[in-house]
């Protein structure tokens, strides 16, 4: 990184408060592919001059996979510990790089004493585009490229966010194509509900293969994602179909960072 990523602890030591907390999430912290997305989100925040910070080692899993696997105890332990940290730092606004963290903090934390304004990074990008702070200029041109967006369930159906990620793609002047199943009718990547952490039940095929086949029907050059789990499932699918040379799977944050030359 060309700049230092500020942590809450550091800001607090300086007696400062950030405008927004960037909740990185476990995938964003540890998964090699997702780390790239994390860095690009920071580049965007840094570029537009938003005062932000991350929790760093003070962050812990939101508890989403535990809750969805049925372990409410573990979920609430995680949630309450995280809420204590967040409230301790007087956090008001949070941006996440993962729809699962987004959904959990936004919807499930308030009932346990943690109420924040929570947005997904595609919503932040949408706002920045609307404010004219991000322009899709000065970097890689996506003009005329065929791009299809895969709706993450926990962003789309789970919380009704369909427009924000599409807005980020519209400014690219690219050729946007929708898959047969998109928006509220979108098809899961196969990783949600704690499926990410287990082998799928036996069946005719894996869900990410079904999804990739549908994506391939649109003959895309780029498959756009907005979730680190979707990223893993879609990338695996593209590799299995031997298309990883021609088709890139990129997160909306990565596309935005590239288009702006960050």
């Amino acid at each position: 990184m060309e700049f230092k990523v500020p942590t809450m602890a550091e800001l607090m030591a300086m007696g400062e408060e950030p405008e927004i907390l960037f909740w990185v999430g476990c995938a964003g912290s540890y998964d090699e592919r997702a780390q790239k997305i994390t860095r690009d989100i920071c580049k965007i925040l840094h570029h537009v001059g938003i005062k932000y910070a991350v929790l760093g080692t003070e962050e812990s899993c939101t508890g989403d996979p535990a809750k969805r696997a049925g372990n409410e105890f573990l979920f609430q332990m995680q949630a309450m510990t995280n809420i204590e940290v967040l409230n301790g730092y007087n956090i008001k606004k949070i941006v996440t790089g993962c729809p699962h963290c987004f959904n959990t903090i936004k919807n499930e934390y308030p009932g346990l004493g943690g109420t924040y304004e929570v947005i997904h990074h595609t919503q932040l990008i949408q706002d920045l585009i609307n404010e004219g702070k991000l322009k899709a200029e000065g970097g890689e041109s996506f003009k005329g490229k065929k791009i299809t967006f895969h709706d993450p369930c926990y962003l789309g159906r789970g919380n009704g966010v369909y427009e924000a990620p599409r807005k980020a793609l519209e400014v690219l002047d690219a050729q946007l194509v929708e898959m047969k199943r998109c928006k509220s009718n979108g098809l899961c990547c196969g990783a949600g509900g704690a499926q990410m952490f287990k082998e799928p039940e036996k069946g005719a095929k894996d869900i990410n293969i079904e999804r990739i086949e549908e994506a391939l029907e649109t003959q895309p050059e780029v498959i756009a994602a907005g979730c680190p789990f979707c990223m893993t499932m879609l990338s695996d699918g593209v590799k299995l179909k031997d298309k990883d040379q021609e088709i890139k799977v990129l997160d909306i944050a990565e596309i935005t960072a590239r288009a702006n030359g960050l």
Partner: protein
Amino acid sequence: MVAQIIFILITLAGVGLFSFNARKVIRNIKIGRPANRNDQPAKRFMTMLKVAFGQTKMAVRPIPFLLHLVVYLGFVIINLEVLEIMIDGIFGTHRVFAGLGGFYDFLIGSFEFLALGVWLACAIFLIRRNVLKLKRFSGVEMKSWPKSDANYILITEILLMSAFLLMNASDAKLQALKEGHYISAGAFPVSAYLQGLLPSSAASLIMTERVCWWFHIIGIFAFLNYLPYSKHFHILFAFPNTYFSNLEPKGEFTNMASVTNEVKAMLDPSFVPAETAPGKFGAKDVNDLSWINLMNAYTCTECGRCTSVCPANMTGKLLSPRKIMMDTRDRLEEVGKNIDKHGADHQDGKSLLDDYITREEIWACTSCNACTEACPINIDPLAIIVDLRRYAVMEESVAPGSINAMLGNVENNGAPWKYSPADRLNWAEQG
């Protein structure tokens, strides 16, 4: 006079038997745990207007939407005709509303078109189910009773509409003959074409008219009493089911209050939890589910829109959200019968989980909410799946091995993977 007495007795028996069975259904639903869905009455009312009355979620699939709309409007509007039949039956009158004149003609005429529409829609539905064999109507759970149930409903509706039209046709013929009390009333744009099929003697016409009249009304009472045994219950339950549907974001799962108390006590030893009755975590059987889940089960009309969009089901896995709802209803019916026979405390040693729904089914769910989005009347199979998982994980500690490993990692490392919390910021040092 005898006819009136018979009519009144049939009506009382029909309505009485229905209320007896409906009360049982409501008692069964009340086996469920409490859930508060009385907030935001205005929003709830609007949801019911839109989704149940307005049929908005049906419109996603245009062909069944149009066919269903005809049957739905037919059902709602032809009830005016049933009202007339009721009054005629009780007071021994004939076409009591005929005094409305031109408006009556308009009403009867439009009922005839609707009756024809319903007849045709049901015929097309039968063809879709039995000849075209649409994938949505098959599946492991759609054998035997569920399969014949659908056909019985459609055939009954066709018979009822046929009786209505034949009744009108013979009535019109009798009107032309100026026979007895058959006053000249009504317009018969559809049944006019059936007149040729009917005998010409007044006696046989009166016979046909009466048989159809009695068949029609007895059929309606029979159908009413068929509802509690059938998926067709949705014509009544769709309304409360949408009113009490989940208004929160689909991604939001409930925070179990019983767990909150325990977790607070663990994190803060000075916290004294409110005294709560001991209970299970999650659901093993229907009485562990909420009354909303159980009402959902009675409301399900087995259309299969949930299953056809389920990513697990479409890739050949065992999970079918429709089966989750049907299993829940079947088990609840069984529990209800046990209560009738052996009293409220009887245990039959069976449970929803394992005896009806297998572990393989619940673990195949990605919680993507495609099923809840697709349901035309806001049924939530995912809520049941999550409660079954909660039982498996919190009461039994039985989950797929890799899920246990993930849970262990979250507990020990604060991440679902086995990485050190100290490495959480490593990404900021690279790239």
